[in-house]
């Protein structure tokens, strides 16, 4: 069965600092991987996706993620965070329409 682990429940980062959110997945074949962001009271917005090809994928809002098959990881990164990046971030795995989400990482930005 597919599963996703996000080991960090809550991360606090200073504005302007770099960010890395961890995601590990379990899936029997080549995974389809996604990062979504959820601001308070809002839905899930797609940040980026990996289907195949280049293992470093670029997304919206300056985010990128790297697929590492050997580590079963798909970590999300941003070189310099902005206060507006404060939100909940979800990693998901899911070919064929059924997404399995991690428990999410809540990102707090401090001035």
């Amino acid at each position, binding site marked *: 069965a597919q599963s996703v682990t996000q080991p960090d429940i809550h991360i606090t980062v200073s504005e302007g600092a770099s960010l890395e959110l961890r995601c590990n997945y379990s899936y029997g074949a080549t995974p*389809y991987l*996604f990062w*979504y962001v959820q601001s308070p*009271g*809002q*839905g*899930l*917005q*797609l940040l980026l*996706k990996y*289907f195949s090809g280049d293992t470093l994928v670029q997304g919206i809002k300056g985010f990128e993620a790297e697929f590492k098959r050997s580590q079963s990881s798909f970590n999300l990164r941003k070189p310099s965070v902005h206060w507006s990046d404060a939100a909940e971030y*979800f990693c*998901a795995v899911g*070919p*064929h*329409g*059924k*997404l*399995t*989400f*991690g*428990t*999410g990482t809540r990102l707090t930005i401090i001035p």
Partner: protein
Amino acid sequence: EPEVTQTPSHQVTQMGQEVILRCVPISNHLYFYWYRQILGQKVEFLVSFYNNEISEKSEIFDDQFSVERPDGSNFTLKIRSTKLEDSAMYFCASSETRDQPQHFGDGTRLSIL
């Protein structure tokens, strides 16, 4: 940019009552989904729908639940005889194909009293 829209944003219902959550998927999308997120927990898949029938459903999606595409634009989730544990945020999503990224609505917060 096209959006998935959900109504109502908040629904309060007495336990045992039926509730219908409504969604308008993106117009050229063919695959539709419902997920739920119980407060403080992860987002969970409920059901996927394509070509007017259920493609896949989770263990959560029992006989209490049903989905329907009553016309060319709406996609609904019906919960019969609601229980306290049905209280959650329900998200609708749609995608062009089964493997394309899913676009989510802002959700309906369902509160069962």
